[in-house]
């Protein structure tokens, strides 16, 4: 049901403790001990790969212990797939080491760039929606999948501005990327909402364009609103609960495509573990309801 279909060039798959179509949360160091002590009922955890690129020490010790109890998703934020220059080979190999070490069920990165020359900007910067950029992204995703020996998912970023001379929409770009590289998609519904409000587009139309079989994972998070000359500009800060409008979009999206692994992201002002688990339970309710309907109605999303 959550199988991600590659149309032309299927990347080699290595089935390893798959991430279930259930709710998960981002793993934070301040919650390590509580998680190991209580082993809360939760489908899976996701970590930012870059936080585990040290050689050893407590981060690896705790992640190893938690990995023994839960499936894991490895989410990269520093690979810079959208850079015009070559893929950062050293970073790609660090990612491969982590994949070998933890055998995550999902590996993901972004439609974004973070590096220019020798400078790492530590932010997901926007990629022009051009054929040229699509060629670059395709080559980098294919190279990364070759290095890892498995498929990756590519996530839509939060975008704050348009870039002139676009040759396609963001969803068209992402779909073409999957067709050419065999990657899957991680749809961040909060990012869809933030980007669409900021650019003056319709979030429902954006999501309706995405074929169900391409989606391997969903992200949910909170955002902030900044008023600029009486017009709101949304900032994707991962610092609060999921907004009602985003949650509604998520529910409708899953109604359309079927249930998927769903992550609650909360990276700024990280609250107590219970708060994250409560957010995850909201998503899990949604997943359970759709699963229940599928069982009664004969699995329309099969």
């Amino acid at each position, binding site marked *: 049901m959550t199988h991600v279909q590659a149309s032309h060039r299927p990347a080699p798959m290595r089935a390893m403790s798959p991430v279930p179509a259930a709710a998960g949360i981002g793993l934070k160091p301040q919650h390590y001990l509580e998680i190991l002590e209580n082993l809360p009922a939760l489908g899976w955890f996701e970590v930012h790969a870059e936080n585990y690129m040290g050689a*050893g020490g407590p981060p690896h010790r705790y992640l190893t212990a938690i990995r023994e109890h839960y499936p894991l998703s490895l989410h990269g934020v520093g690979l810079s797939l959208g850079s015009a220059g070559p893929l950062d080979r050293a970073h790609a190999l660090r990612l491969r080491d982590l994949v070998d070490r933890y055998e995550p069920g999902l590996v993901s990165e972004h439609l974004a760039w973070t590096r220019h*020359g020798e*400078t*790492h900007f530590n932010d997901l910067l926007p990629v022009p929606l051009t054929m040229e950029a699509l060629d670059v992204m395709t080559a980098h995703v294919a190279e990364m999948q070759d290095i890892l020996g498995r498929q990756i998912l590519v996530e839509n970023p939060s975008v*704050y501005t348009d870039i002139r001379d676009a040759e396609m929409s963001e969803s068209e770009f992402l779909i073409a990327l999957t067709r050419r590289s065999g990657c899957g998609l991680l749809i961040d519904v909060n990012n869809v909402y933030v980007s669409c409000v900021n650019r003056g587009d319709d979030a429902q139309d954006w999501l309706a364009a995405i074929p169900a079989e391409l989606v391997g994972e969903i992200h949910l998070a909170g955002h902030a609103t900044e008023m600029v000359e009486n*017009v709101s*500009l949304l900032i994707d800060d991962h610092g609060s609960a999921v907004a009602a409008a985003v949650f509604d979009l998520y529910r409708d999206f899953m109604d359309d495509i079927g249930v998927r692994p769903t992550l609650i992201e909360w990276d700024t002002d990280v609250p107590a573990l219970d708060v994250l688990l409560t957010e995850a339970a909201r998503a899990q309710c949604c997943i359970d309801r759709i699963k229940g309907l599928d069982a009664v109605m004969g699995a329309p999303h099969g």
Partner: protein
Amino acid sequence: MAEALAGFQAAFAAALSGRGPIPAALSAKLGSPPVAKRFDVYRNNVHASLINALEAAFPAVERLVGREFFRAAARVYLEGGLPVQGTLIGYGEGFADFLDGFEPVRGLPYLGDVARLELLWLEAYHAADAAVLTAEVFSIIAPDRLAVARPVLHPSLRSLASAYPVVEIWRTNREDETVKPVRLDAGGEALLLLRPDAEVRLYRLPPGGLAFVKALQAGATFGAAADELSGAADFELAGLLKNLIAWGAFAALDLESFIVSRKQ
């Protein structure tokens, strides 16, 4: 070669670093927030995330100067350059040197060394794991064989010499609710940091101890490292070696023809 993409990214990068105007390729619909405000979000994300990373890496330095001052100083530090690798583990390498030369903190001459200690602490924290050679292993090696043995130091071992009582300054600013007064004229110290297990530990080295450890780090045998220190009258080799073993400073021993190490 992706020329248009490369040009766009070069312009965007220059603008983020404050060395160029906002890229002309950016646009926004009429009646919506202007491009300049939109670009500010990216510029702010880059700077705020890196300042947050420095704040997380140097909590004692931050407490010594206050949060507002720290964030302003970090902003100045970023003007000198942004990170060069895609992970922020190890980021802040030049921050101590920057503080040494930062005019507004001239009144806190120990600040650079506190930053050095915090960075070394993080290095030890993230260093590779390795089992430690115990006293039992050393006890079965004859002294003459040990003299020509080359130790493999634990991957987490780091050292620091400071003209200030830097551990005390660091510890009270890291751990105490109310910062305790520290006598700056208490003199300098030489330190060893080790994380043989889960926790980073700090030890003070006796006079000559740091030179001994540095000689071992450079690949000397125990004998050669001790010879270098024959001039130091108060250098007690036996006591120091016993401490280093107990602290977990050694991961393996190269006994000329074979290597002694414990299986992980």
